[in-house]
């Protein structure tokens, strides 16, 4: 329950970022390079104007973290929605139609599943970056990242939904719907799908956590959000080299911020899984 409250706080911070952050890190008028690498307030040389200090470009850490969280959440939820959409359409078709459709779709899912999804995401990201050029890639970063992470991890949903559709499709209500002559499409989406959605809910939360981590990883590799519009991953990337000069806060604060956020989602996901599906629970 505590994790739920913390998650709500995180979400509120992300949504209200433009109003509550001390400064707008996207606006270059607010940024003064003379303010760069100021340590957090409580350390020597810190100033109360910048509670958690500033980064190498003179931006307030706290504000960049609020805005970064916002970007990470937008991409994370967007990407998982895309994964769920592809997964539901394909998994539902495979599970309900069976036969050749099932064999082909699930083979494709199996094959993609045999490669680590992070690897797939990194590769698609690399190709997109070369295809669009670094400039336009950075402009389109949010939709592109959503697409990349969405494409890289859909088999998880497809498999889950297929398994529960297989269980549902021979029940009496589906039989009844078939007997009164409803079209297949209607039965699939109006009757079977709503009853198979619990399993999607169970993995949705965990998938958001992993999508946010993928986004951070891509941004850290330089295949994600540019430093001018940072997500948490690109903040960590930007601050990485400054730990050698002792300015640890540039990278450690966004890092811890990301860890706590992902940890909270994971805890919530574990809890949801236990509540919605006690049978799945194991150690």
């Amino acid at each position: 329950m505590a994790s739920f409250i913390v998650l709500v706080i995180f979400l509120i911070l992300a949504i209200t970022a433009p109003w509550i952050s001390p400064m707008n890190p996207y606006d270059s008028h607010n940024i003064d390079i003379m303010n760069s690498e100021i340590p957090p307030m409580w350390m020597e040389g810190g100033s109360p104007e910048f509670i958690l200090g500033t980064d190498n470009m003179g931006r307030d850490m706290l504000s960049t973290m609020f805005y970064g969280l916002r970007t990470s959440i937008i991409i994370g939820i967007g990407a998982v929605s895309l994964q769920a959409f592809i997964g539901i359409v394909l998994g539902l078709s495979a599970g309900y139609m069976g036969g050749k459709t099932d064999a082909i779709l699930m083979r494709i899912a199996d094959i993609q599943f045999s490669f680590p999804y992070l690897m797939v995401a990194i590769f698609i990201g690399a190709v997109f970056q070369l295809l669009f050029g670094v400039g336009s890639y950075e402009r389109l970063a949010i939709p592109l990242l959503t697409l990349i992470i969405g494409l890289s991890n859909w088999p998880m949903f497809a498999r889950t939904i297929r398994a529960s559709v297989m269980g549902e499709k021979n029940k009496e209500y589906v039989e009844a719907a078939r007997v009164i002559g409803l079209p297949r499409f209607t039965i699939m989406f109006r009757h079977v799908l709503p009853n198979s959605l619990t399993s999607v809910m169970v993995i949705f939360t965990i998938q958001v956590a992993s999508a946010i981590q993928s986004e951070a990883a891509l941004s850290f590799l330089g295949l994600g959000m540019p430093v001018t519009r940072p997500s948490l991953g690109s903040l960590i990337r930007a601050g990485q080299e400054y730990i050698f000069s002792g300015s640890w806060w540039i990278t450690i604060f966004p890092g811890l911020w990301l860890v706590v956020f992902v940890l909270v989602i994971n805890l919530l996901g574990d809890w949801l899984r236990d509540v919605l599906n006690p049978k799945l629970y194991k150690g």
Partner: protein
Amino acid sequence: MFAFIIRRIIQAVVVMMVISLVGFSIKSKIGDPVRDLVGERVTPEERAQIADKMGLNDPFLIQYTRFVKQALKGDLGRSFIYNKPALEVIVRHAPATLELLIGTALIIIFVSLPLGIQSALQPRSLLSRFTMSFSTLGVSMPVFLTAILLIYLFAVNLQILPSYGRGETVDLFGNGYWKTGFLTHDGRMHLILPCLSLSSIMLPLFIRLIRSEMMEVLETEYIKYAWAKGLSPARIWMVHAFKNTLLPVITVFGVQMGITFAFTILTELVFQWQGMGFIFLEAVERSDISLLIAYLVVVAGVFVLVNTVVDIIYGFINPTIRIAGTR
């Protein structure tokens, strides 16, 4: 069984064909083989001539067939940043990555086994509670952050371990291909931090897995029987229970090492480790398409090969898999 093996091999070949087709499409769309060969200081006329001679104006299918034929001979194009055949660049950097994976596997085995068994035998002890909560935290920690924290702690603050590179290496076979860091003190010191960060992602998973498998086994009838026979606890735990925990753990271990491979890209970037992931990022940054595609083909090839072999071995062990694949 024979039909199963054939089917599995055909599938592997089809996957490789699809991957090479994807790779080749990318290459023909954004690659520039003329530049790869002669660099950028040639006139447009000379370029056109070379392009014609290299057959770059041929139909797509002919070019693709040529690409596959050359790939089968081990020619995956030339990397212009290294000015060497792309495959050779990858092969030369592979041992560095492999050593990271070996080091990581060693850490996982020697840490997760004792901790997992301990927390299964005494689930309420302080140590196992600490292990379990720590492993929840570990799952949520991105590997690059672990790496940065480790560098900050051990290299910047305490200054007891090096922060980047491979250190002193020894040429293993005397032909310059496999330079190992395991044989020198300096090389081993350089391995510690990258391997620690890599193993941090998998450790929580393995400790949990070993714990839950072991606890399940401990509840079975034959363990109760062993207790009733009056065997010593050590023998029941280590010989009877542990041996049967091992099979699922080994299975997952194989899969997870594949996933760990994806994370080496991140680790190699943080530690400036000259492995395959590092040259991949270099290829992306400087748009060396040939190297990028060679990387795709090699990595996909290794994955497909390993998966196929594992599946076939499973087919021998567990006959139900052979039937499930038929449909």
